């Protein structure tokens, strides 16, 4: 079923080896343990809060502390290998210590969004059957509602400034507690609650046995929850081998541009698969330094991190790049040490990519991936000229196919649903054989994304299959319309959805946000006139809605589904 001649292999050039080497490691725990020895004295993680206060852990410290946490899980909590451990932390020094400790204990990491509501938490913890929860102390007030409904038998609390030097840590906690009043008291629960430092102390008292020696590549490493089309979050089962393969793939595509001397800005949340693999695992594997930003919103929170450290790589999504360039401090003084940026998560708008290049003098290379594929599927080779709008070529070891409704391959140059096969493909969805059977067939992942491949093997995503707007029988891809809208100076950001329409079945509706830095007022008429100039008539939005902001996911993807839900409610009311 694959694209028979694999035209993308030619695009690899001399820089990219077409064969994916098997990882030298048997498991992530193996990799972590070895890397912490090799780079012992180097700085692994630095966490920077908005006022510039920071804390750093070296590779040796990360190795030691994650050993202690692993011992805590195995010997104090008495977890068997393969037990699920839920981690609900924003970016900070606690995250790598805890996540790596989970791997070293042979347990399975369940990444959880810190902003989840109690209902969402209960769903994720019961679905995964997690037994230990490590949660940010900022959200301890949710525990009372949650823990009783789950199998959790131990809670560990970690602070945003965990492992900072003593005075800055006390100040950050003091500010949270007395100034912003964001630090709730620890509730009394039926299960024991410990602070992370104390858990490490307990772990230290036990012998550090290498429980992970028995781990193999096809053992489960993560349950990575993803919304998917049905709306109910389900856990993609990613193995140690999946992640190991994917970080090899990232490293091959990064080639000589990535090294242990690098410093990567990690403003995207680590509980999301993009930053987890690209930042946390790949740059750690290289012996590089991660600059962790607990919350990139408002974007100004990143300012001190970029000013104080020689950031050479940035991973981000369209909204983050756009947000950075709309900050004067960034646009006027972009980081001099920057080599390149990696974009993913959602479509990168042409206008944003071009402006980024103009502002920073470096390229932003777009990649494509999904939770089910650990995540990277395709990436733009860094040594080739920028192909605007392309998500690049499949990474080594990855096969792709583009198919129509009958799962027959489409002609070259025609849009089809993108299917992916490779060593980074998940085992399936946790306890959901039906969903697995739908998404995963004969090793192929059905991505639900419509893509086109050019003759050189470069892919472009046309849109999400389910986001297509059908106007009088014509397909309108929201991405194309959004891209057109983003070219208008007065538009900060835009989202396009389909709404019911009496005459055309569906009609295009655009939500636009005024760019505050442009003195001209955004007007519906100007937007429509602009679209008429560049788009076929049926693609031009029939209604324009001005908004102050658009709904976004934790990593900053614009959530069309929320706008659709709003529109559904609105039209249901009219019917």
């Amino acid at each position, binding site marked *: 079923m694959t694209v028979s001649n694999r035209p993308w292999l030619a695009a690899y050039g001399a820089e990219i080896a077409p064969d994916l080497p098997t990882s030298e490691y048997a498991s992530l725990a193996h990799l972590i343990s070895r890397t912490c020895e090799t780079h012992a004295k180097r700085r692994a993680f630095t966490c*920077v809060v908005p*006022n*510039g*206060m*920071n804390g750093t852990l070296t590779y040796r410290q990360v190795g030691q502390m994650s050993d202690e946490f692993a011992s805590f899980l195995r010997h104090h909590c008495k977890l068997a290998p393969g037990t699920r451990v839920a981690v609900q932390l924003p970016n900070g020094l606690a995250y790598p210590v805890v996540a790596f400790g989970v791997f070293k204990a042979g347990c399975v990491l369940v990444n959880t969004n810190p902003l989840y509501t109690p209902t969402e938490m209960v769903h994720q913890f019961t679905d995964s059957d997690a037994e230990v929860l490590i949660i940010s102390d900022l959200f301890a007030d949710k525990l009372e509602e949650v823990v009783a409904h789950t199998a959790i038998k131990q809670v560990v609390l970690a602070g945003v400034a965990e492992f*900072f*030097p003593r*005075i*800055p840590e006390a*100040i950050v906690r003091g500010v949270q507690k007395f100034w912003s009043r964001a630090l709730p008291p620890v509730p009394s629960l039926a299960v024991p609650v410990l602070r992370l430092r104390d858990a490490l102390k307990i772990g230290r008292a036990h012998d550090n046995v290498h429980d992970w020696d028995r781990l193999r590549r096809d053992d489960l490493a993560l349950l990575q929850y993803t919304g998917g089309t049905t709306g109910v979050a389900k856990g993609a089962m990613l193995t140690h081998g999946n992640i190991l393969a994917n970080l090899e793939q990232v490293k091959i595509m990064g080639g000589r541009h990535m090294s242990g001397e690098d410093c990567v800005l990690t403003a995207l949340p680590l509980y999301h698969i993009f930053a987890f693999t690209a930042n946390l695992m790949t740059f750690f594997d290289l012996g590089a330094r991660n600059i962790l930003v607990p919350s990139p919103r408002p974007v100004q929170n990143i300012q*001190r991190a970029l*000013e*104080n450290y020689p950031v050479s790589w940035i991973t981000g999504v369209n909204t983050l790049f756009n947000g950075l360039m709309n900050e*004067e*401090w960034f646009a*006027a*003084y972009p980081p001099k040490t920057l080599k390149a940026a990696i974009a993913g998560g959602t479509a990168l708008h042409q206008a944003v990519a071009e402006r980024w290049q103009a502002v920073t003098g470096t390229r932003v290379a777009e990649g494509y991936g999904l939770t089910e594929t650990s995540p990277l599927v395709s990436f733009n080779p860094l040594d080739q000229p920028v192909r605007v709008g392309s998500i690049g070529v499949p990474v080594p070891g990855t096969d792709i196919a583009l198919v129509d409704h009958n799962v027959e391959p489409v002609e070259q140059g025609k849009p089809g649903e993108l299917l992916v096969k490779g060593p980074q493909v998940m085992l399936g969805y946790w306890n959901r054989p039906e969903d697995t059977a739908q998404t995963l067939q004969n090793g192929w992942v059905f991505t639900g994304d419509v893509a086109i491949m050019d003759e050189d093997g470069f892919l472009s995503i046309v849109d999400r299959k389910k986001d297509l707007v059908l106007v009088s029988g014509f397909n309108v891809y929201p991405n194309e319309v959004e891209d057109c809208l983003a070219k208008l100076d007065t538009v900060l950001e835009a989202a396009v959805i389909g709404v019911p329409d009496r005459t055309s079945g569906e009609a295009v509706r655009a939500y636009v946000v005024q760019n505050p830095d442009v003195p001209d007022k955004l007007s519906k008429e100007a937007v429509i006139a602009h679209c008429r100039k560049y788009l076929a008539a049926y693609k031009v939005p029939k*209604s324009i*809605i*001005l*908004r*102050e902001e658009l709904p976004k996911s934790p990593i900053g993807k614009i959530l069309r589904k929320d706008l659709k839900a709003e529109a559904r409610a*609105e039209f249901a009311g009219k019917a």
Partner: protein
Amino acid sequence: MLTELETTLLGVMMMVIMLGMGASMTPRDFLIAFRKPKGILVGLLSQFAVMPFLGFLLAVALGLPPALVVGLLLIACMPGGTTSNIFAYFSKGVLALSIMMTTVSTLAAVVMVPVLLSFYGGLAGVSGEYAIPAGNVAQILVVLLVPTALGMFLRKLNANVGATVELIGSFMGVAVIVFLIATWVPRNYQLLLDTPAHVYAATISIGLIGMLFGYWVARGLGQDTSRSRTISLETGIQNGPLAVLVITLSFSVAMQQEVLLIPFLYSLFIVLTSTVITLWYRRNATREALARDAAKLGTAP
């Protein structure tokens, strides 16, 4: 009057405050601020053109004696106080603008305060023993710039130290006012009782009128409501403790008593008036945000 120890303590506190102010920014913040300098220029205009003139008008209109005129003029000519940043924060104003205005007005004060003082002092007929030597003011300000520069350097050297110093500095901004009140009021309550109502009126209204004018000057020059509120607070809130320090370092102990009256009263009342104004501004800011939300919903077809 202040004892020598208290004066020294006041000087040290001012230095810590300036150290904190320096640590709150980087050289780049300056460069960025001056790429679009309009907000700051508007702020400077209301700080050094509007306020001193208001001070002069009040002094003349109320027919104050020379000792009080000097105190009032000095307060009117002072740069912005660092406490204004806290009020800007609570009023949901533009914090960056507030910090920059405080910094820039403090720098500009080295030249502006001596010039303005001798100009308005001359106009108001203050002379002889009551005239504050221009060199004195400039000297004190220059001395205070040393910790400011040191603060910036500390921030560059170590971000943790910088941010800690910044925080201590802003606490000190409040502490110094408490210190002044605690040392001065108990010894001078008789003086407070004897002080006529129009002197109270002058000290309270200089801050309030400054805020009023600051707001409308900013609005008139095209600043939005949020920036105008920030400029308004910045204009009305002067560096009272600095005025006290200048006086204690410029006048004999015997003369200090009277000259200090207005700066002390000002420092006391500005905390109260700013709190009220901040609460009011905060409500306006919230109301505007709600109105924007409503407008959003209104645009739905």
